[in-house]
């Protein structure tokens, strides 16, 4: 159950998408999101869809993993779709039963929003699937570094982010272990009455909190032992270099964006 969580999961590989400069990948993802939200017609979405499929094929990551990334957000998707379906009132009425009414406009918007959100999730999953969390936060740090002039703690923010990302799988594993241990002592977690289950959550949360604090403490000590004192004057093991392929990828993305803009103006 807990193993299904794929947020922040990284699939090592050597595809062209993996090799792109992470800074460019973040910018491209932002442009991609703009591309998805710029138009109001299905033609615009088609441009986005072509882009998504192309990127997914280039990444050589099985399509199944992208479906898996959508799965946890399915309830949210369904609620959005249902709300749009029943609440938008425009165009021809297709179906009516007492106060429930489905109109053509509602159906359109409902499908449109679904597709848009699914593509949004898939696109951002592609970013995390092909970029290791560490390089990702490195790239964010570099992209935000102009804010340092405004005394914004960019490095500290990036460090906190990478630590948080780093510990997601660890905490999942830890939770799994503690759950098993308490189940072995007869705690009802998946079964039993609601009150029992709620009470047994305490048996999981307290050990989890304690071990998180312990881990944080150990990590702080380990960092201090290695003379960590913030980002000032710190050099990097991996330098980021942009190559021709990064600029080409950016250019292609901008082309798609331009196409989306043109189509959205034409279909207005």
């Amino acid at each position: 159950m807990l193993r299904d969580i794929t947020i922040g999961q990284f699939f090592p590989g050597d595809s062209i998408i993996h090799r792109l400069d992470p800074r460019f990948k973040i910018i491209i993802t932002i442009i991609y999101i703009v591309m998805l939200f710029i138009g109001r017609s299905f033609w615009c979405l088609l441009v986005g869809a072509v882009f998504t499929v192309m990127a997914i094929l280039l990444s050589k990551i099985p399509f199944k993993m992208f479906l898996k990334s959508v799965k946890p957000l399915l309830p949210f998707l369904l609620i959005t779709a249902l709300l749009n379906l029943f609440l938008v009132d425009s165009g021809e009425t297709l179906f009516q039963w007492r106060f429930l009414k489905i109109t053509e406009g509602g159906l359109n918007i409902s499908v449109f929003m679904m597709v848009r959100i699914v593509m949004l999730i898939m696109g951002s999953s592609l970013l995390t699937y092909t970029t290791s969390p560490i390089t990702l936060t490195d790239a964010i740090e570099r992209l935000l570094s102009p804010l340092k002039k405004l005394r914004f703690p960019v490095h500290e923010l990036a460090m906190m982010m990478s630590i948080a990302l780093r510990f997601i799988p660890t905490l999942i594993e830890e939770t799994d272990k503690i759950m098993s241990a308490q189940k072995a002592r007869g705690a009802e977690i998946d079964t039993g009455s609601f009150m029992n289950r709620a009470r047994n959550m305490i048996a999981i949360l307290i050990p989890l909190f304690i071990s998180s604090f312990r881990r944080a403490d150990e990590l702080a000590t380990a960092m201090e032992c290695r003379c960590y004192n913030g980002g000032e004057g710190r050099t990097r093991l991996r330098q980021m270099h942009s190559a021709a392929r990064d600029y080409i990828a950016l250019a292609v993305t901008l082309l798609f964006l331009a196409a989306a803009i043109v189509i959205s103006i034409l279909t207005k």
Partner: protein
Amino acid sequence: MPILETKGLTYTYSPGTPFEKTAVDHVDLSISEGELIGVMGHTGSGKSTLIQHFNGLLRPTSGQILLEGKDIWEDKTKIRDVRFKVGLVFQYPEYQIFEETVYKDIAFGPKNMGLDENEIKRRVLETASDIGLREELLERSPFELSGGQKRRVAIAGVMAMEPKVLILDEPTAGLDPAGRDKILSHIKAYHERTKNTILIVSHSMEDIAGFADRILVMNHARLFCCDEVKRVFGRAEELTEIGLDVPQITKVFMRLRQKGIDFGKEVYTVGYAKELLLRELRERGRL
């Protein structure tokens, strides 16, 4: 009738994904009541996955686990009862402690069994003394205790359910020699008093050789062997090949045999080695 039996037990992690991995592969086992079994295997050999099947935490992909001759998955709703009959102590069990007092934490399992206060009290006091926790510790917070004491509290928490089969996953990992000996001797005493079946997973051959009846060895998801101690350590070369080790004293006697001094017996405890050497020396009239 064996108390615990597996038939063609197979378990695959994340089937159908790129991470698919068979952790336990067609394991057939039979464990009799009252046995003390050592479980060995290199890291990732599937021993932890295997023992999590015995109390129904994992459900086999295929195959069966029989507890007292009955398939534990026959009735899914009764799986909790299986967990009370087969107690499992995880690695570093002190990390699962959560109650305010030692007493309450040990009582967590028995309470889940729905026992009455008197019975719970009897069990907590009994297991605390079994595992060597002084009574005045019972009202203390478990988080104030030393590492070894915490470990013993956690083990007591499972023992207090009075399971017919007690499984301990590396109960001595990360403890100093004194703490290790203490836990092992308490487990041994518990075994002698209750005559319950015990399985101990351990990396330390010295720990296991001393008091196990049989040794179960896992290798690459398969059962390598499950046999008497002397027979297992008799296959020292094979054990070394699969990344395991034999007790140091066994190695000494193997070297002696290579040098032509053969005692004709497998030696795996220091005490027995001493006895054997003294007898030999007496026979030769050098003592």
